[in-house]
């Protein structure tokens, strides 16, 4: 149990210097995606970002610097969440892009697709409460050396809502040991003081895992929805840290 700092907003935006070029975010649209517009809208609040949509049937990432797999119910979540979407034509390109070190962010259903595609570890089961949940959620930041979390501090407590029926992340014990040893966990569910407790765990995820990266740190899946908290009028701005980090990371390349 560690206490973190409660933040009202994410770290400050980079200063007034003009961006060298817009960061090209490719948002993949699967049939049944429903947070693609929200990701687009949230990104459009960053002057440095140029979001555009990628169609699941295409074989072209259209010059994306960052690929986003948005939330939703791709293919209706029929069969198993993410199980069909991972076979979409564009996923071949996404996997190649990820292997080449390109940053890929999977949010909610996007996380489920990444897990099905074995681009991140683990699997997502139904919530232990057996119900869909939609509510604000505190997260503890475990790493800030990833392209997704540079604008946070380690131990920082942020608030990003969860909205899912299958967010109960799990992994086999051996694999879990490796994941923890390598420090692949980026966000954990916690209470407002940063205590990682079972009571603060909304879905039963092992080790309170809310977000996780691959070994090379360039692919992240997270159940909470950062695009929902990028404007103060929607009740929070902590989600800006995730997209802002990706912008900083890309501009530095």
């Amino acid at each position, binding site marked *: 149990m560690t206490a973190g700092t409660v933040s009202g907003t994410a770290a400050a935006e980079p200063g007034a210097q003009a961006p060298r070029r817009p960061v090209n975010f490719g948002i993949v649209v699967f*049939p*049944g995606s*429903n*947070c693609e*517009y*929200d990701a687009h*809208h*949230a990104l459009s609040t960053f002057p440095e970002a140029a979001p555009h949509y990628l169609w699941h*049937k295409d074989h072209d990432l259209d010059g994306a610097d960052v690929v986003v797999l948005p*939330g*939703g*119910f791709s*293919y*209706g*979540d*029929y069969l198993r969440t993410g199980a069909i979407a991972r076979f979409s034509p564009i996923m071949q390109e996404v996997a190649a892009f990820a292997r080449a070190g390109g940053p890929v962010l999977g949010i909610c259903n996007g996380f489920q697709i990444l897990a099905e595609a074995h681009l991140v570890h683990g699997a997502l089961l139904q*919530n232990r*409460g057996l*119900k*869909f*949940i*939609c*509510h*604000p*959620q*505190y997260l503890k930041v475990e790493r800030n050396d990833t392209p997704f979390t540079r604008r946070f501090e380690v131990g920082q407590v942020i*608030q990003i*809502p969860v*909205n899912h*029926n299958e967010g109960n992340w799990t992994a086999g014990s051996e694999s879990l040991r490796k994941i923890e040893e390598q420090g692949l966990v980026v966000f954990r*569910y916690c209470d*407002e003081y940063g205590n990682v407790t079972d*009571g*603060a*765990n*909304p*879905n039963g995820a092992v080790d309170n895992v809310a977000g996780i990266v691959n070994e090379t740190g360039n692919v992240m899946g997270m159940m909470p*929805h950062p*695009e*929902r908290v990028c*404007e103060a*009028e*929607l*009740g929070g701005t902590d989600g800006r840290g995730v997209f802002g980090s990706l912008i900083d990371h890309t501009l530095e390349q």
Partner: protein
Amino acid sequence: MPELYEELGLSGREYQQIRQIQGAEPTHVELAVYSLMWSEHCGYKHSRPLLKCFPSGGERVLQGPGENAGIVDIGDGLAIAMKIESHNHPSAVEPYQGAATGVGGILRDIFTMGARPICNLNSLRFGEIAPPPGRGRAGTGIADGRGAAHRGAGQADFAQGAADTEHADGTARQRYLFEQVVAGIGGYGNCMGIPTVGGEVYFEEAYQGNCLVNAMTVGVVSHDAIIRSTAAGPGNHVVLIGSKTGRDGIGGASVLASQEFDETLEEKRPSVQVGDPFTEKKLLEACLELLQADRFVALQDLGAAGITSSSSEMAAKGGVGIDIHTDRVPLREPDMAAWEIMISESQERMLAIVEPAHWEGVREVCERWDLDATIVGAVTDGQRLRVYHDGERVADMPALALAEAPTYAVDRERPAHERDEPVELAEYSRPDSSCAGILLDLLGSPNIASRRWIWEQYDHQVQLNTVEGPGGDAAVLRIKRSGGGIAVCTDGNGRHCYLDPYRGGKGAVAEAARNVSCTGAEPIAITNCLNFGNPEKPPIASQFARAIEGMSEACEAFGTPVISGNVSFYNESFGEAIYPTPVVGMLGVMPEFERRAEIRFRGKGDVVFLLGDGAPALDGSEYQKRWFGKVEGRIPDVDLRAELALQEAVRGAIREGIVRSAHDCSDGGLAVALAECCVAGGIGARLDLSRVPGRVSGRQDLTLFGEAPTRVVVSVALEQVERLLSRLQSLGVPSVRLGSVGGEALSLEIGGEELEVSLPALADAYQRGIPSALEESPGSGSIDK
């Protein structure tokens, strides 16, 4: 053996009319089509004349009743499309799918108009999910403010002994229905990516055999993108888009599968439609894309009575004819007969009129979305609906006659239980329990307690417009394209309408308007869903007519036309009707969404006022029901002039930043409203209720828990008190200063009595109400506001 037409629900007279129209003995397909189009559900036979009483026009109205949804202007070239619809009977049979397809149907009604759905709401009624206190179930969790265990001793007189076991069984079924309906609503709306932002639910014995599931959708559309369902252009294609057609939803008409039509039992299986939100999501995106590209002449969703109603309505509206070739309809199961294809209620389908030059474009977009699009017929100039199967003409009917079912007026008779006088207070001796105990009990009543358990199962945030989600008086959404906002809510009080349908109907509109006004929005239009019993019975006919009268009067006063709606009759089980339950879906607009109020008390030292001087009454209150086991008397009437002034004062004070919170004072009375303001704000208040209007000596309980319309609780910063008072004075709105916000408890002083309940105790009772009725732990690790 009854005649086939009788089995189909047609009267002998109607059958003769049909013969006359057809000029011959109708074919089986024709009879099937007539029986559906002339059913109460499609034909509005007992309601059409009365529905004309509703005001339905106005400057803002771009589309009134008669289309898939009504549309009102909200400025900046934008408009709101909205409608509410019932799915009561399917939900009673199969609650998850019944509720889910109810949501699917109302969503299609909205995007059929060219609008993108931006939120869902719902209004639900079930039987009791837990016995009231003193009636069995242990551990209802009544505790007074100091934490001591406490039971309502005054209630022993209605403990029901032997009835307990029966009651327990009944409540289990109701809990099942409730949980499944909530899951079904969430399952469909969440998948579609439409936030469910508000609604209401009540639990009453009257709905035990017949639950109500009313679903409402609100969409946004540019004025120039509105499309209607008027077929035009003989020679144009009639195109069916979406799911394949199966036998689902034919169950209701399964009598058709009798002697002549079908001999096999399997074919008679009744079935509730099964929802496929994934296909509907693709249908939504494909239709909106095609509408944007101007590929459709007209569009109509397939709801009740499937192709039958959609094609005949489109033809009737356009004064044209339509030919349908049922053998071209893509089928889910082989060997469906023409009549089955015509009346199937398979979900997620649309009928579009497409010019031949645009067909290729339509086909391409549908293919990209993996949707079937099939030319199943053509527009003709004959004004007739003709059905062909394998080249053979199996039906030929005038479209207009189908769309205009005969109407009936039933003699009205005032129901025997309606009274002219309110209850005698003397017959309601004050319970022995402390007022604190009663307050905690009411806060935990399933009819009042926090609805968090419900709305946490709904995605209420997707689309990034929800600036004020569920839990307040009304939800507030921003309109990204204009910077403005809308407020939406649903309201209806069956108990009130049971006691007095006229006053109850009026009150439903007034309360909905008040809820919207409490956010700062100006009410501009309503949609309604009228849930009643069997309209052929004189007492029901009376309730229906009186409720419409009351609602119409209120709509006139507020300038909120009825732009769409739905009637659901025959909500009865074993001859017992539900409470008459008109539900109002209210839309309000605000020029800037940032200028709004929430219900929560916010700042220490803020001054609390009660606006309005209605005398609280026991009649129809939650207190009367829960603590005396009775629903009787006569509810107070709404004084519409006072109501208008009150709401105008509240809205103005919010827009000018004078008040810091506003909350409608309704179910559970003043004490419950104040407790809700405290719980939502996480801060207490110290208040003196001694000067609240309508005091009766020795009856502090009446002041605390009695209910009256036209009352709002506001809090205001100390330095704004003068501004508030002068505004109230100029509008003639009475008010009482109650005290100030602060502390860790709600302390109420009233006529020498004091009541103090700690904030955690209030919050606990309020948050645990529904989960403990369902025997679950509250919340799922969520953050309390």
